[in-house]
Every structure is written in structure tokens, then in C-alpha cells.
């Protein structure tokens, strides 16, 4: 599934990275605890989270994640977006809750990582 397809099915806003929209992604990890992401998400290319602070972008960077999806209407600030831009990490934001977001992506064929 491409980043653009994820954006469409989640009714998400593209906050950064329209030029990355055609990237194909396979494995997804969802968590609010960044240490869990670091422990179990090392094969993943997408991070779904309800946590919203600069360490989310840092964590994504360490794992070479290409897209972060913020759920529950969380909006990253300009600092976080600047960091994402400098690392070429696409950023989406959806109003859906975590469970619903993951359910929608799963239904559309995306699977977990690890």
C-alpha cells in the first residue's frame, strides 16, 4: 500500500511529504511508548501513534521509518514537522482513534511487522 492510499483510507491530512506519497509500505507498528517501538518496530516502515512530541520523530528516524501517522487528531507542531522534513519522513494526521486506524489499514491489506 502506498502512503497516498493510507492517507485516503484514513481520511488523513498530509502534513508533510506529498512527494513521498507513492512510496510503497509493507509493515506497520503502532504504539504510544517509544521504547516499545524501538524494541519491536525495527523492521517497520510506518509508525502509528497517539503520542505527539519530538521524540516520536527521533524514534522514527533511528528506525528508518518513512511515514508517521498521528491518530486521535493529534497535531505535531512546526518543530516536529521541520525535523520530519529534514529526515524525509512523511507525516499524516487522522481524526480516527488508534484501534480504528489500525483496523482500517488491516482491512485494506496492511499487516504488522516483526
Amino acid at each position, binding site marked *: 500500500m502506498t502512503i497516498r492510499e493510507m492517507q485516503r483510507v484514513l481520511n488523513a491530512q498530509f502534513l508533510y511529504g506529498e512527494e513521498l506519497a507513492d512510496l510503497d509500505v509493507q509493515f506497520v507498528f503502532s504504539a*504510544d*511508548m*517509544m*521504547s*516499545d517501538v*524501538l*524494541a519491536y518496530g*525495527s523492521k517497520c516502515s510506518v509508525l502509528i501513534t497517539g*503520542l505527539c*512530541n*519530538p*521524540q*516520536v520523530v*527521533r*524514534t522514527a*528516524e*533511528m*528506525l*528508518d521509518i518513512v511515514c508517521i501517522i498521528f491518530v486521535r487528531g493529534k497535531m505535531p507542531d512546526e*518543530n516536529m514537522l521541520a525535523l520530519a522534513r529534514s529526515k524525509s519522513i512523511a507525516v499524516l494526521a487522522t481524526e480516527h482513534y488508534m484501534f480504528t486506524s489500525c483496523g482500517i489499514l488491516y482491512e485494506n491489506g496492511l499487516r504488522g511487522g516483526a
Partner: protein
Amino acid sequence: MSEQLTFTYTIDGNDFTRAGEASSSVKNKLKMLGVGSDAIRKVAIAMYEGEINMVIHADGGVITVSVSDNDITMVLADKGPGIPDISKAMQEGYSTAREEVRSLGFGAGMGLPNMKRFTDEMHIDTELGKGTTITMKVHL
């Protein structure tokens, strides 16, 4: 590479927002040196966990990273409170982090186990009231 390269970073213990900048810098440098992506990811994850620990548990410290032909060595030295029981601290899920740290997405008690998992060698040297030095190696 024949000679050994060393990078040193001072970590500010009062700025959670900037935690991870050193790990990010090392990641970029290793990429430029042509180190393989698997080794880079291991170093990045282990160093980032250690850097975060320095900020949330030890009021900052100094990280030295050396790159040789055979391995990458990270030494994280702080003058924090020390770790009273290393085997307990190494258990997944053990954390003394405050609620405030948890709300920032850390304090799951996964950092030290992750550091061990993603490195080939890890040694913790700690003294109560004096500080902690963690040495980690990733083989190339």
C-alpha cells in the same frame, strides 16, 4: 578506514526536546563513512536509548563513539545517581521513571534490554551517588 575515528557529545540533562540529537548526528556520520545499514540501525537504537536514559535518569553526560575497522564502540558516561541493582534494571518492564516521563512516551523499562539486544557487547559500570558508564560495541 585504517585509523580510528572518535566523536564526542555532551548531553544536556535538562532538555528532553533535544535528546536524540547526538544519536542522529552519529547515524549521519556512519552513513557518510559507508557503514552498513544494519549496523547503523543497531548503533542508532542502542545509543538513542542510552542518550534518553542519560536525560531522564542521570541529568545528562558525555557520549564518546569510536569507529574502527572491526567495530563501533559507544561509551556513555554520566554523573547521575547510579544504578542500585543492575540485574533488576536489565529486566524488561522494570522502570523507576516518573509519571511525567511516561507521558512523554518513555519509562516502559525497555531501554537497557533494547541496548543489550541491539549490540554485540555491553558492560555497565556503576557506583551509587557517583554515576554510570555504559560501554557498548557493535561488530562490523
